[in-house]
């Protein structure tokens, strides 16, 4: 028996000594990892790190009238002012008097202050059909035109009787917008749109952020290492020790969750895979036949939402019960209580990873192929898991004191599901509800995933910030409440 005790003791000491030395290695890995990630992210994010679709785009008015028959010599001029930082394209809507037309249409854009022509495009009138919207893209995005008066001039060389007409809206008006037809100023606006991109502040200063971040990281590590040397136990160090100490327990509990969940079912773990697929199938059949939303790749759109939301509701639902459900353990053995919510979130996370497989299969089957943006998914998934952990800890604490929480949560998660654009496009929401969307964390998580999977591009940098922000807020709040109340759990179990 004796050597056994010594073995255990030396093991404990070894662990602590190991930490002193390995901490330095960990720190180095952390710093190098950070720098590496920054560079990798720079390339993965690509264009989206620097530009986003401008919020100042001029949108097309609904047409309610034609302008002039665009014969040789007649002209439509629309002056306008815009705040787009990089203009990429101009579009014009056409009417044809429902006939086939001939000739060529000329579209010119001038900058009026310096009277410089910035675009000249031609379009064969024969190609134009009624209501056709022609888009003219600049060879290179034009910059530096914010606030400058611009002129869109449309002329043609068609003969009367076979000429097209640009459309207009007679009621629309905007400051600095002036429409004149054949030289006579008229009320209303031409049906045209101007699109472009804006610079993103974070993108412009990306490397500065990286450098500042690196300095902060190194500084923090040095402070931590220093205080460990002085015998203090900073949070980071304690977390590391706890993870090392309870790694085995966490693994066992996660394994139990898994084995117990599917132990007596015929398909077993296949259910993690089948569940989202079947849900999607049902919803796909219902919504694609009943409501007909105009969403490209609707099945992928739907499945992205379902997979993410399922994870959320499963993880939160399971953590909600993690304390009450483990009552027999908590009252008999001492284990740090945060282990229970944590294991539940981890085991649902594994479920999520399995559920990603059908998502990818459906994505490929729909004709979307993997892009480098897939590599950005781990970020949002980890943020989501942290978010669920925070919320789950909050719910689990609440559940101990008020058992009503489980029923309340059922209702809340259902309302939450309908308020999140899972199966409908966000554009159908009335503006009053759309405001709610801005405060809905899941909306951002799902939007992030959709950008990566469907568009194959990185979302705007602000999305990273928001996802991270929601995760941090949630975990701080959850951990705070949990820590405050955990000593009283055992009295209420």
């Amino acid at each position: 028996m004796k050597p056994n005790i010594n073995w255990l003791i030396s093991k404990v000491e070894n662990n602590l000594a190991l930490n002193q030395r390995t901490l330095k290695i960990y720190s180095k890995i952390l710093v190098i990892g950070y720098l590496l990630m920054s560079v990798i992210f720079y390339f993965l994010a690509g264009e989206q790190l620097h530009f986003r679709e401008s919020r100042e785009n001029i949108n097309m008015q609904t047409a309610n009238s034609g302008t002039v028959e665009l014969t040789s010599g007649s002209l439509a001029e629309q002056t306008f002012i815009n705040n787009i930082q990089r203009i990429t394209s101009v579009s014009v809507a056409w009417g044809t008097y429902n006939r086939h037309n001939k000739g060529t249409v000329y579209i010119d854009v001038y900058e009026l202050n310096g009277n410089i022509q910035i675009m000249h495009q031609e379009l064969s009138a024969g190609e134009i059909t009624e209501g056709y919207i022609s888009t003219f893209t600049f060879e290179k995005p034009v910059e530096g035109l914010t606030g400058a008066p611009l002129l869109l001039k449309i002329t043609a060389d068609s003969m009367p009787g076979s000429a097209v007409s640009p459309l207009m809206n007679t009621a629309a008006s905007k400051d600095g917008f002036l429409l004149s037809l054949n030289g006579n100023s008229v009320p209303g606006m031409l049906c045209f749109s101007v699109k472009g991109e804006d610079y993103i502040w974070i993108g412009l200063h990306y490397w500065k952020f990286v450098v500042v971040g690196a300095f902060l990281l190194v500084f923090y590590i040095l402070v931590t290492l220093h205080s460990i040397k002085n015998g203090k136990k900073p949070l980071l160090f304690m977390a590391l020790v706890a993870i090392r100490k309870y790694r085995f327990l966490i693994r066992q509990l996660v394994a139990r969750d898994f084995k117990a969940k599917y132990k007596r079912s015929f398909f077993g773990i296949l259910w993690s895979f089948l569940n989202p697929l079947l849900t999607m199938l049902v919803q796909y059949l219902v919504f694609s036949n009943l409501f007909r939303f105009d969403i490209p790749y609707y099945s992928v759109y739907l499945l992205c939402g379902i997979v993410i939301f399922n994870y959320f509701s499963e993880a939160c639902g399971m953590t909600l019960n993690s304390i009450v459900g483990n009552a027999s353990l908590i009252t008999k053995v001492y284990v740090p209580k945060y282990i229970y919510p944590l294991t539940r979130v981890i085991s649902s996370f594994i479920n999520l990873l399995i559920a990603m497989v059908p998502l990818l299969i459906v994505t490929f089957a729909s004709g979307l192929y993997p892009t480098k943006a897939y590599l950005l998914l781990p970020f949002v998934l980890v943020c989501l898991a942290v978010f669920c952990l925070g919320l789950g800890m909050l719910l689990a604490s609440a559940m101990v004191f008020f058992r009503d929480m489980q029923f309340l949560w059922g209702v809340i998660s259902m309302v939450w599901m309908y308020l999140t654009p899972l199966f409908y496009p966000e554009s159908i929401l009335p503006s009053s509800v759309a405001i709610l969307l801005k405060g809905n964390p899941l909306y951002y998580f799902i939007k992030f995933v959709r950008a990566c999977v469907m568009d194959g591009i990185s979302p705007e940098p602000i999305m990273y910030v928001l996802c991270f922000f929601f995760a941090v807020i949630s975990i701080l709040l959850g951990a705070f409440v949990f820590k405050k109340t955990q000593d009283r759990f055992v009295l209420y179990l």
Partner: protein
Amino acid sequence: MQFRLSGDRIMSLKEFVTAKIGGKLTYDEFWALKNISFEVYKGEVFGIIGRNGSGKSTLLKVISGILKPTEGVVKCQGNVVPMLELGSGFDMDLTGRENIFLNGAILGYSEEFLRSEYDRILEFSELGHFIDVPIRNYSSGMLMRLAFSIATMVNPQILIVDEILAVGDEAFQKKSRDRMMQLMSGGTTVLFVSHNLSQIKELCDRVLWLDGGGVRMLDLADLVCDSYEI
């Protein structure tokens, strides 16, 4: 250790709010343990006796960290293994083998330790090939044998025991009692609760007599047991 016992146990938010507003929320303060202060020395076998409801189990729970005292502190030097209940955390759908690792992890054993001791646990439990059967099919005796084997395979620095555990059939009871004795005499510090006074006398160096949440007597085992019996 103070408990606040409310008139009815309030379990719902609505009840709580209405009671709070109505000012009906009164608590009966009840001290399960009060003014308990003692030291246990290294290698000592320390007995705790007292009538039902005198706070013995609460004290053990406080010492093992399951309950946090309302006031005061518990200082432990060394790893504490509480043996308050056997088989906590057993999952009925898992096999015996899987439960050894699960239960072991919950009791705080390391993975290497469990792997190296696995054969001894199996041998001691005498379960043989039943170890790969889901434990919902076990008889209660088999369950207890497995639980006991896992729980006593450790050599803690501080051991907390609520009643000497003798489980299973007669042969196994003897074996498990021997194992407990071996554990308790191996230089380990033991906190030991029992109603069996002869056992207490036999094993303990000193005994604490709890009565109504307070210390009635704390002295050498024979002295306390004699006055307790009167």
